C-alpha cells in the first residue's frame, strides 16, 4: 500500500511543475481512493494507473498541445510562460553550448586537456597493450601451463626421454583437462614455388588446438587419429603464410604444399596473431610412438579449481610412479603467461602506473579549469540565483556543461589516439615484427570512456555544490572583483596545480631514466665488433658430407670475393641475450651445469672479432668421425676451473657422465661475448663445431669493406651461384639484426617519452591557467599599484615568483615520489640507478623552466594593464 503510494508519487513527480501544482494533489487523492475502492483488484488497478501515468508523461512534456493548435483566444490567459518546445535537458545543452561559444578559451582548453590526456592514453595503451598482451591469443589463458622436463632420463635409455605420451601418464587427468605435447623450434623448408624458404614451426599432438583454445580461420585442426607413427602428411598454416607465400588461395584447404620435397595436405589456417610456440607459422602432427626419444615440452590446461602447484605435484607424482624417481625434480610447469613474458611483469605494472599518472594530471588540469571557470562565473551565478534560479537548476547546468566538455574532449581524444597511433607507427623504424596489429581493444575504449564521463560529472558537480547559495548572495553584495573573494579557492587551485607538477615530474624522471638507460644500451659492450658485418642465413636441405662440402665452398667462395675480409658460420646471431642452453656435465665437478652454447665453423671467431685466448681453433678435421671437441669462454673457465688451464679438460652432454667416446675435449679458450645481454656480465658459454652435429641451418657472417647494400647483394649472389636451390633468409647487416631483435626497448622508451611530454604540456597548461586567473582576479589590485607608480616589471616578477614557489613545492613532492617509486623501474634500467642524480637534476630543470615559461606569458599582461580601464570597470 505504502509502496504503491510512493511509486505513484515518484512517477507523478516527474511531471511538469505546472501540472503538479494544478492537479497533482487531486490526482494523487483520486489514486488513493481508487486503490481503496478496488480492494480486490489492487494490483491490476495499480498496474493500470501507473501505466496510464507513465504513458501520459511524455505527452505532457512534449505532446502537441491542443490549446496551441486551436485555442488561440485563451492561450494568453492559460499559461503565464510560453510553452517550452524543448525539454529542460536539451535547453541545458543549448545553454552550455552558448556558454562555450561565449568563452571559447575555457572550452577549448578543457577539451584540449581531455583530448590530450585521453588521446595519449589511447595511443600509448594501444601500442603497449599489443606488445604486452597480444601474444596471448589463447582462450582462458590463465588456466594454461607450460610443462617442461630438463635432464629427464626416463627409465630406459640414458640421456633422453622415453616416457610415454604425457597425457597417458597416470593420475594427470584429475589435474589437467588437456595436455598437448609439442616439439618447438623446428624449421621447415618450403620448397614449392620459385624461392625456397625456411619457416619456423612446431610438431604438435592432435589435441593442440583444443588445449590452447584457438579456432582455425579456415578448415579444421588435427583429428585424434592423425598423430603418432604413420601420421598422414598434413599441416596447419598461419594466416600470414597463407596470405603471403600462398597468395590467399581460397582453395587451399585440401590442397598440398611441398615441405622438403614431400607434399603435405593443408587442413587448416590459424589466425595470424597465434604464433605459439616460439613464433611458429606452420604446425605438423607429431609422429611419436611409444617411448620416442624427445625433449619433454607440453602445454597443459589446468582442470577447473586446480592450482598450478597442484598440477606440478601431480606431474612429479606421475613421473615417480612410472619409475623415474630421479626425474621428479626435473619436471616442472610455469603459467604460460609467465613463460611468454618472463620478467616483464614489472614493466606492465610500471606502464599502467605511468599511464594512470598522466591521466591523473589531465584530470587535475580539468578540475583546475572548472574551478577557474566557476570563479569567473560567480557573479553571473549570483545574479541568476538572486533572480530566482533554483540551485538544482544551476547545478544541473554546470554538470551538463562539464559532461558535454568531457564527451567532446573524450571523443576527440580517442580520435587523436587513433591517428596518433598511426603517426607513431609511421615514425617508428621497420624493426617491429609485422604481426603486431596495434588494435585498441574495446574494453580499453570503454574504460577510458567511463573515466571521461565520471570526471565530467565529478568536475561539474563538486565546484557546483561547493558554491553555496549564501556564498553567491554574498558575492553579489561584495562585487565580484574584490581581492579577497577568490582566496580560499585559489589556494585549492594552487595545490591542484602543484600536484600536477609533482606527478608530471615523476613521469618525466621515469622517462628520462629509461632514455638514459637506452643510450647506455645502444653503446653497450658486445664482446665483438658489429660494424661492417653482413649476414644471411643459408639453409640447404641436405645432410652430412654434402652439407659440410657445401658450407666449405660457401666460405671459400666468399673469402675469394672482392670486398670481404673474413667469413664465418654460426647457428644463431649474437643479437643480445643467448637463450640457447646446453647441459654441460663437468668432469671435475661430477655435476651438470646449464650453460649457453653456440655452434660455429673455424672462421667465425675471426669474422666476429672474438679473440682466441689459448689452444687451437676448430678445423676441418673436426667432424663427426673425429673425437668431439669444444671451446669454452673465459667466464666458463673462471667459474668452473678457476686458476686452471681449461684446454684438455672434458665435458659431457646431459646430466650423467657420457660414455667414453661422447666426452667433449676443450681445445681452446675464447674471449667473452656479452651473451646475457649486451653490457651485462657474460655467462658461461661453450662453442661446438657445427659439423659435429646434424645441423643444416647456419648464418653466414662476412666482414666487408663494401657499402652495406652492395655487400649484401654480393653475398647473396655468391651463395646463389653455388646452389640456387638453397633458401636464403634474413639477409641484413649485423647492426640491423641487433636492432630488430631488441626493438621493444626503444619502443617502450619512446612511449614513455611521449607520455612524459604530454604530462609536461598538461602541467604547463595548468600553470598557465592559474597564473592567467591570478592576474585577472587581481587586476584591480595590480592596477592600483601601477596607478600609484609601481614598476610593472617588478609586479611581473612578483607573479612569476609566486608560480616559482608553486613549482618548487611541486618539484619537491615529485622528487620524493620519484625517489621512492623509481625502485619499481629498476628491472627496466640498464647501468642507471633509480636515483641517478643527473637524470633528476635534468628533469627538475626542465620542469622548473616549463613552469616559469608558462607563467611568464600571462604575467606579461601586467605590462599592458591600463589602470583607468580596470578601475573604471568596477
Amino acid at each position, binding site marked *: 500500500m505504502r509502496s504503491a503510494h510512493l511509486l505513484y508519487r515518484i512517477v507523478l513527480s516527474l511531471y511538469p511543475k505546472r501540472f503538479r501544482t494544478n492537479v497533482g494533489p*487531486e490526482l494523487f487523492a*483520486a489514486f488513493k481512493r*481508487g486503490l481503496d475502492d478496488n480492494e480486490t483488484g489492487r494490483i491490476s488497478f495499480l498496474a493500470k*494507473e501507473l501505466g496510464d501515468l507513465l504513458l501520459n508523461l511524455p505527452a*505532457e512534456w512534449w505532446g502537441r498541445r*491542443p*490549446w496551441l493548435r486551436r485555442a488561440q483566444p485563451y492561450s494568453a490567459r492559460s499559461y503565464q510562460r510560453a510553452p517550452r518546445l524543448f525539454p529542460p535537458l536539451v535547453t541545458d545543452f543549448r545553454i552550455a553550448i552558448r556558454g562555450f561559444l561565449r568563452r571559447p578559451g575555457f572550452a577549448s582548453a578543457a577539451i584540449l586537456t581531455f583530448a590530450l590526456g585521453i588521446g595519449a592514453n589511447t595511443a600509448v595503451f594501444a601500442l603497449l597493450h599489443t606488445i604486452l598482451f597480444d601474444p596471448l591469443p589463447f582462450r582462458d589463458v590463465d588456466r594454461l601451463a607450460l610443462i617442461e622436463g630438463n635432464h629427464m632420463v626416463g627409465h630406459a635409455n640414458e640421456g633422453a626421454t622415453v616416457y610415454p605420451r604425457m597425457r597417458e601418464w597416470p593420475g594427470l587427468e584429475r589435474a589437467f583437462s588437456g595436455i598437448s605435447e609439442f616439439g618447438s623450434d623446428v624449421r621447415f623448408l618450403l620448397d614449392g614455388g620459385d624461392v625456397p624458404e625456411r619457416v619456423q614451426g612446431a610438431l604438435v599432438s592432435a589435441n593442440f588446438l583444443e588445449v590452447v583454445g584457438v579456432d582455425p580461420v579456415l578448415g579444421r585442426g588435427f583429428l585424434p587419429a592423425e598423430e603418432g607413427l604413420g601420421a598422414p602428411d598434413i599441416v596447419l598454416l598461419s594466416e600470414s603464410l597463407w596470405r603471403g607465400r600462398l597468395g590467399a588461395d581460397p582453395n587451399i584447404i585440401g590442397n598440398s604444399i611441398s615441405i622438403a620435397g614431400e607434399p603435405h595436405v593443408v587442413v587448416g589456417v590459424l589466425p595470424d596473431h597465434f604464433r605459439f610456440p616460439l613464433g611458429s607459422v606452420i604446425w605438423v602432427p607429431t609422429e611419436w610412438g611409444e617411448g620416442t626419444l624427445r625433449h619433454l615440452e607440453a602445454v597443459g590446461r589446468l582442470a577447473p579449481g586446480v592450482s598450478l602447484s597442484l598440477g606440478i605435484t601431480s606431474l612429479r607424482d606421475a613421473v615417480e610412479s612410472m619409475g623415474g624417481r630421479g626425474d621428479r625434480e626435473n619436471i616442472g610447469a610455469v603459467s604460460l603467461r609467465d613463460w611468454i613474458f618472463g620478467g616483464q611483469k614489472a614493466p606492465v605494472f610500471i606502464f599502467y602506473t605511468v599511464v594512470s599518472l598522466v591521466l591523473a594530471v589531465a584530470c587535475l588540469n580539468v578540475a583546475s579549469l572548472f574551478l577557474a571557470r566557476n570563479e569567473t562565473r560567480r557573479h553571473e551565478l549570483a545574479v541568476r540565483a538572486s533572480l530566482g534560479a533554483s540551485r538544482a537548476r544551476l547545478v544541473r547546468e554546470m554538470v551538463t556543461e562539464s559532461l558535454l566538455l568531457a564527451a567532446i574532449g573524450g571523443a576527440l581524444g580517442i580520435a587523436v589516439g587513433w591517428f596518433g597511433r598511426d603517426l607513431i607507427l609511421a615514425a617508428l623504424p621497420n624493426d617491429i615484427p609485422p604481426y603486431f596489429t596495434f588494435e585498441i581493444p574495446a574494453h580499453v575504449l570503454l574504460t577510458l570512456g567511463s573515466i571521461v564521463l565520471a570526471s565530467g560529472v565529478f568536475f561539474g558537480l563538486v565546484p557546483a555544490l561547493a558554491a553555496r547559495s549564501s556564498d553567491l548572495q554574498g558575492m553579489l553584495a561584495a562585487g565580484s572583483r574584490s581581492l579577497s573573494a577568490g582566496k580560499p579557492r585559489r589556494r585549492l587551485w594552487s595545490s591542484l596545480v602543484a600536484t600536477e607538477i609533482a606527478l608530471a615530474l615523476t613521469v618525466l624522471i621515469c622517462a628520462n631514466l629509461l632514455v638514459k638507460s637506452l643510450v647506455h644500451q645502444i653503446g653497450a659492450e658486445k664482446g665483438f665488433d658489429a660494424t661492417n658485418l653482413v649476414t644471411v642465413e643459408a639453409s640447404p636441405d641436405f645432410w652430412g658430407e654434402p652439407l659440410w662440402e657445401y658450407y666449405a665452398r660457401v666460405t671459400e667462395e666468399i673469402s675469394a670475393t672482392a670486398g670481404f675480409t673474413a667469413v664465418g658460420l654460426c647457428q644463431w646471431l649474437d643479437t643480445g641475450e643467448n637463450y640457447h642452453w646446453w647441459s654441460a656435465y663437468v668432469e671435475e665437478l661430477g655435476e651438470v651445469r646449464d650453460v649457453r652454447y653456440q655452434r660455429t665453423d673455424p672462421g667465425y671467431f675471426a669474422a666476429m672479432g672474438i679473440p682466441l685466448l689459448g689452444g687451437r681453433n676448430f678445423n676441418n678435421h673436426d667432424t663427426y668421425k673425429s673425437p668431439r671437441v669444444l671451446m669454452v669462454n673465459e667466464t666458463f673457465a673462471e667459474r668452473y676451473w678457476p686458476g686452471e688451464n681449461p684446454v684438455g679438460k672434458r665435458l659431457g652432454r646431459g646430466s650423467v657422465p657420457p660414455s667414453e667416446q661422447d666426452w667433449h675435449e676443450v681445445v681452446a679458450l675464447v674471449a667473452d661475448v656479452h651473451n646475457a645481454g649486451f653490457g651485462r656480465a657474460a655467462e658461461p658459454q661453450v662453442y661446438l663445431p657445427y659439423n659435429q652435429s646434424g645441423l643444416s641451418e647456419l648464418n653466414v657472417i662476412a666482414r666487408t669493406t663494401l657499402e652495406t647494400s652492395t655487400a649484401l647483394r654480393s653475398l647473396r649472389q655468391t651463395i646463389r651461384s653455388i646452389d640456387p636451390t638453397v633458401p636464403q633468409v634474413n639477409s641484413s647487416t649485423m647492426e640491423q639484426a641487433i636492432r630488430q631483435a631488441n626493438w621493444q626497448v626503444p619502443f617502450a622508451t619512446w612511449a614513455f617519452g611521449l607520455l612524459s611530454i604530454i604530462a609536461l604540456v598538461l602541467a604547463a597548461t595548468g600553470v598557465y591557467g592559474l597564473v592567467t586567473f591570478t592576474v585577472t582576479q587581481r587586476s584591480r589590485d595590480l592596477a592600483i599599484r601601477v596607478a600609484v607608480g609601481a614598476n610593472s616589471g617588478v609586479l611581473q616578477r612578483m607573479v612569476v615568483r609566486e608560480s616559482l614557489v608553486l613549482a618548487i613545492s611541486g618539484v619537491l613532492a615529485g622528487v620524493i615520489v620519484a625517489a621512492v617509486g623509481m625502485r619499481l623501474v629498476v628491472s627496466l634500467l640498464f647501468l642507471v640507478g633509480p636515483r641517478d642524480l643527473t637524470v633528476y637534476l635534468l628533469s627538475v630543470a626542465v620542469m622548473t623552466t616549463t613552469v616559469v615559461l608558462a607563467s611568464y606569458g600571462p604575467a606579461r599582461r601586467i605590462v599592458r594593464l591600463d589602470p583607468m580601464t580596470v578601475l573604471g570597470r568596477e
Partner: protein
Amino acid sequence: MNVDQFLPLRPVEFQVLASLSQGNRHGYAILQEIEERGEGGAVPGLATLYRAIVRLEKETLISRAENGVASVDDERRRVYSITPLGKDVVKAEARRLAPMVDLVKGATT
C-alpha cells in the same frame, strides 16, 4: 463562440463533458460515473482523465464549481462544472457523432 473549432473531441474529453452535463462532480466521481455508465470498456486512467480535465479547463469548457470544496473528508477534492460553452461543444460533438452511430446501428441490427 464557434464551437466547431473544438471538434472533434477526444473520447475522454467527450466522456468528461457528458458526465459533467449531468451535474457537478469531482474528478474521481467523473471516473466512477463513466465506469457505471460504460460497459466495462473505455474507462480512462486517472492521469488521462486529469490531463483531460486540465485541458478542458484551459479551454474554458469546464470550470471549478463556485462552492469549491465538495466534501469535508478531503478538502483537496475540487468540484468541476460544465460551462455553457462546454454544453454547446458536447452537444455539437453528439450531433456530429449521431449520424455515424445511427449508421453503425443500422448496419449491425
